[in-house]
């Protein structure tokens, strides 16, 4: 048996979150004394596939059926189930993306397996007991969960596992699940990608610059965008800002929005309501800029500046421009 890792592509490259899943999968394989095989679906360059060897993947199964370029739940589940059967995989790893969440649950029922999502650490394996740690209560706690079925499926939380780099090249093999038209019956009518303007996708970002009502109006949002651009960051916002329509809902970070866990989260003009903190508190370093010294966010911060966003942010942009990149 080998550990199976699902990898997702984006613009022909492998997503960072999938490299994390591959690193996770190969470390689990090592503990279990076996190898890790990746399954790639959709459009990914061959050299990007072979480079998965750096994360410890020994073989890559590649299904390049063009109908799979867009995500189709049933078709993806079938491909993964077939690869798992061929590899006799008892452990299946993917990233906790929207695709991962959509296929994981169906796959768990189909393979009669245990599923843990939002997993933040490598498993503790003791004889037949297999326990993972996952984020619960929207970032306010962690839980240890034992996966009691024979087949174990793990969705790894983004940005919680270091990408390993141990050298090596993976062999790439063509793989086909021989899908029929019926598997694509629920294919999307249309796929619309946001124009990130050469920017960074928020859920994948290592640095996030986020703004709240302290920006005073949408006409000042360019400050957030300029700072983000200088730092190679994605932009995000607080719930009130999305609710009043300054920014779209998909940028809203918090308990009822997106949860992010970047290396650096810069909160500008956000007071730090408990619901917002729940969406960001697994960020490695948190910077808070707020004109109110009593803002609760400072208690969760690593670095803080008390000051007006419109005066502080231009200084940060200037300092960021001066960095050697």
């Amino acid at each position, binding site marked *: 048996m080998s550990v199976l890792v699902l990898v997702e592509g984006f613009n022909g490259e492998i997503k960072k979150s999938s490299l994390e899943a591959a690193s996770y999968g190969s470390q689990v394989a090592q503990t279990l004394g076996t190898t890790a095989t990746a399954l790639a679906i959709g459009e990914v360059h061959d050299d990007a596939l072979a480079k998965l060897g750096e994360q410890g993947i020994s073989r890559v199964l590649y299904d390049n059926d063009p109908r799979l370029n867009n995500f189709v739940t049933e078709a993806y589940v079938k491909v993964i189930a077939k690869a798992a059967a061929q590899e006799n995989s008892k452990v299946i790893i993917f990233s906790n993306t*929207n695709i991962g969440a959509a296929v994981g649950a169906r796959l768990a029922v189909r393979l009669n397996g245990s*599923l843990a999502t939002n997993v933040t650490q490598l498993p503790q394996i003791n004889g037949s007991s297999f326990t993972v740690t996952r984020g619960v209560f929207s970032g306010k706690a962690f839980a240890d969960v034992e996966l009691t079925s024979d087949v174990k499926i793990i969705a790894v939380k983004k940005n919680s596992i270091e990408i390993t780099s141990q050298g090596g090249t993976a062999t790439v093999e063509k793989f086909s699940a021989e899908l029929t038209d019926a598997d694509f019956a629920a294919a999307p009518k249309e796929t619309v990608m946001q124009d990130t303007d050469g920017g960074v996708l928020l859920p994948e970002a290592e640095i996030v610059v986020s703004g709240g009502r302290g920006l005073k109006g949408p006409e000042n949002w360019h400050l957030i965008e300029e700072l983000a651009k200088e730092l190679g960051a994605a932009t995000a916002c607080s719930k009130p800002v999305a609710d009043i329509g300054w920014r779209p809902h998909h940028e809203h970070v918090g308990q009822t929005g997106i949860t992010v866990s970047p290396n650096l989260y810069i909160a500008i003009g956000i007071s730090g309501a408990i619901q917002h903190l729940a969406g960001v508190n697994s960020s490695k370093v948190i910077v808070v800029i707020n004109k109110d010294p009593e803002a609760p966010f400072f208690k969760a*911060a690593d670095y803080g500046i008390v000051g007006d966003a419109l005066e502080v942010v231009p200084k*940060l942009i200037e*300092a960021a421009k001066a960095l050697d990149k």
Partner: protein
Amino acid sequence: MKILVCISNVPDTTSKINFTGDNKEFDKNGVQFVINPWDEYALTRAIELKEAKGGNVTVLNVGEADAEPNIRKALAIGADDAIRVNAHPKDAFFVAQQIAAVAKEGGYDMILMGKESIDYNGSQVHGMVGELLGIPSVVPAFKLDMVNDNTARLEREIEGGKEVVEVQLPFVASAQQPMSEPRIPNMRGIMTARTKPLKVVEPVGNEAKTAYTSFSKPEKKGGVRMIDAENAGELITLLRNEAKVL
């Protein structure tokens, strides 16, 4: 059209989270419980569809009797009747089995719920229900409309974009904003909710696939280092040289 909306009873978003019994159990002491906020998007959209096209909205909760105030609240918001499966929700698979059993018996056209619960954040139940019933699951959806009596059109979020999907009834979908604007129950709703039917049924099977063994809380931060606003640029230097994140 018959719509089944699944709700969970969860700690209010402002709750401080603590554990008891050697960190093995969630401490309910002093915690206010609410309808899972994500489920409210599903509930209000179901009620809107019913108001526009006619039909019936049933609320389903898998939980113990202490969930009933929030089930009544869902009825006050506009659901027609409710079912509670009388069981401690052990894990996602256990809950999905209960929902699938109720759905099979009731013959619903649409099964809606939030994209995840804010307590266990599993995001698993909708897909499991879809698979158990052999019907499509569209997750996470932020728009849901009927194209005709048999077909729904949904928009779902993918990383960096969205997909537009059309599915035949019946199907499962999970909801997130801005699918609908959650409603606050009015006085008339609260009065009528008291007499709306709430059926309590016993669970089917007892199978779970996971076991929660213990809980922990994130480590506290070491304290904040303040930088003078006049020298704000120093922050960038510290982030590079000290925190090493730039």
